[in-house]
């Protein structure tokens, strides 16, 4: 089933000149690939659906890469995978009624507003062109451009009837904490109840130093530009199934539908914190690793954005280490390979070594980051510390 993925791995391996480095790459890549294969071979229904989707996406990307095996492909971004799937059609959801402490939407979404709080209003923020990104913004936006999914990493009790009271007590504590810190726009508790925290018009301190890019645009430090949804759970890279409850997955799906409908957010811009979080000090992707693996994209009506090449790598010269790879668990971030391949091809196209080209990208990031770093990132940094 993952033969196309193996062909992609082989294709990538053949472009590594040093035999020992090639073997190192293969041993790492094939281990991940086989774990994926083992996952896909299990007969659960949702996995079959995900598997089919993944198969199609991998095939498309492998073909895209195979068509351009030389430097002539250098300026071509890996083909966007997100637009290929019918699951990503823009949903249409509207507000049905508003009560004192809640809202109900046409897709069944109910949002509790009793914890809603204001914060600094969203300011106009820059978006940079992904292809040949310049240091000056391509455009300025005022509406949210995407959604970042988080985990609360809070205390977890067994999801059993006998633990209901304990779970509810934790919910209240967590809600109080994240409200006070203006951490997220929404939180979904273990029972699937959706709570509005920071108002959608305001900034939440959820993403800190972060980068994401879709087919056209790149966004830097996403507090201002992306909404945030925290699911009350914790990261378990050893698990293949999502660590969210069925109720949480349902609520996340309808909440995502509503936000995408309201702000016309592309599916490719609905991503996890681990995919966007960067550390400018060591130039590594994955400073935070929540939802580094097993995020249920397909159950939320989204394409598998783990296949998307992170812009932090191919646009700003970040890299990643084994900590992130470990955190991805049984899922395989094909996007990491695609982004590195894109970076390599761009360097070749410009007649530069990868190290030289990476340095140019990093310098660009430094300048852009300095320009866009507002109070949000600084404030969140102080919160984290």
């Amino acid at each position, binding site marked *: 089933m993952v033969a196309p993925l193996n062909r992609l791995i082989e294709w990538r391996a*053949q472009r590594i000149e040093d035999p020992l480095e090639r*073997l190192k790459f293969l041993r790492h890549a*094939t281990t991940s690939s086989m774990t994926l294969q083992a996952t896909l071979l299990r007969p659960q229904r949702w996995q079959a659906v995900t598997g089919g989707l993944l198969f199609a996406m991998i095939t498309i990307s492998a073909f895209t890469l195979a068509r351009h095996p030389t430097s002539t492909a250098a300026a071509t971004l890996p083909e966007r995978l997100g637009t290929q799937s019918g699951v990503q059609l823009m949903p249409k959801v509207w507000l049905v009624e508003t009560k004192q402490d809640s809202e109900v939407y046409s897709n069944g979404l109910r949002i509790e507003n009793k914890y809603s709080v204001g914060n600094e209003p969203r300011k106009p923020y820059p978006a940079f062109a992904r292809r040949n990104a310049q240091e000056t913004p391509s455009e300025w936006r005022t509406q949210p451009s995407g959604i970042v999914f988080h985990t609360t990493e809070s205390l977890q009790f067994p999801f059993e009837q006998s633990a209901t009271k304990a779970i509810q007590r934790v919910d209240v504590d967590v809600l109080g904490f994240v409200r006070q810190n203006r951490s997220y726009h929404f939180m979904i508790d273990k029972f699937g109840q959706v709570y509005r925290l920071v108002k959608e018009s305001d900034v939440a301190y959820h993403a800190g130093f972060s980068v994401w890019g879709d087919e056209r645009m790149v966004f830097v430090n996403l507090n201002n530009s992306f909404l945030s949804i925290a699911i009350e759970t914790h990261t378990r890279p050893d698990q293949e199934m999502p660590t969210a409850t069925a109720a949480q997955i349902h609520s996340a799906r309808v909440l995502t539908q509503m936000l995408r409908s309201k702000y016309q957010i592309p599916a490719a811009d609905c991503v996890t914190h681990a995919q966007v979080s960067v550390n400018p000090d060591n130039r590594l992707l994955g400073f935070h690793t929540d939802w580094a693996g097993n995020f249920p994209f397909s159950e939320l009506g989204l394409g598998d954005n783990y296949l998307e090449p992170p812009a932090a790598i191919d646009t700003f010269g970040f890299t990643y280490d084994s900590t992130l790879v470990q955190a991805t668990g049984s899922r395989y971030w094909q996007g990491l390979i695609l982004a590195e391949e894109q970076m390599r091809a761009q360097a070749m196209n410009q007649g530069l070594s990868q190290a030289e080209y990476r340095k140019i990208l990093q310098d660009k990031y430094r300048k852009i980051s300095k320009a866009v770093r507002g109070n949000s990132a600084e404030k969140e940094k102080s919160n984290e510390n």
Partner: protein
Amino acid sequence: MKTSESTSPLGLDIGTSRICLAQRAGDEFQYETQLNAFVTVPYSKMTESVLKKQKVPHTVTGPEIIVHGNESDRFADLLNVETRRTMTKGVLNPAEPGSLDMMRKIITAMVETAKSKQKLCFTVPAAPLGHEDNLTYHETTLRQILTDMGYEVRSINEGLSIVYAEMDQTSYTGIGISCGGGLCNVCLAYLSVPVMSFSIPRAGDYIDTSAASVTGERINRIRLEKEESFHFNGFSPGKLHQVLSVYYDEMIHSLVHGMKQAIAGTRNMPKMGKPIPIVLSGGTAMPEGFKERFQEVLKESEFQLPISEVRLAADPLHTAAKGALVAALTDM
């Protein structure tokens, strides 16, 4: 016991008839080989002083002197006795009471004690075709010897080590075959991952023993004759060569039959997409004409997988050790 100054990883091929150490010196690979055999000589002060003077590795044990490693062959010929082996059919020899002790002595004569945490990867055979894995004792014992010497130890399947040493051009995809003394080891790997591996007990020793029983010659003499002058060329100049041809042919047929059988029994065989290479290595694969005979038998067998080429390894006696070193260098 010597202490290693270098922390560079090491590869060690522990075969039934030879032990080969591989290490890297700059961009080059360097090898040192010792026979994995010994012979006992009656003790005398004169013999001991001669051995010392000539720097022949030996150990005095009461009424005997044990000569081990490369010199054991010469002494066996001199004394008209057979050499004794620490291993048989790829694993520690259960019929040889001193096997463990001698193995330790031969290894310590070749491999220096690690100064700091130095990586060492050693070869282990695959389970015999159609049998359960019974290699635990062998592998654990060797691991213990090497760990005691201060190494950070890993093991690698011998067939896979051939793939690692020879198949970088095909992204470590293909079939590696090591025809040694005790076993022929086979491994099919796809993108560096072993898909299928097995061993058959028909290898160099089987040919030597069978030929010796038919001709009445000593096994050592058969082996020397085989290594020095035997070749497949369609006609046999003497009885010994004719007998060797018969048993070589039987070994090759067993090998190809085993490969077909193992592949037929492999679940989840990956789709290779293109023909794969076969690389032959080991001392038993070295006679002139061996590769061509193997190709003939493979062709006759209607082998299931498309094969791009059959070739002899660049350095057949050192291929497995090089593969073990490559595994150690890539951090295992």
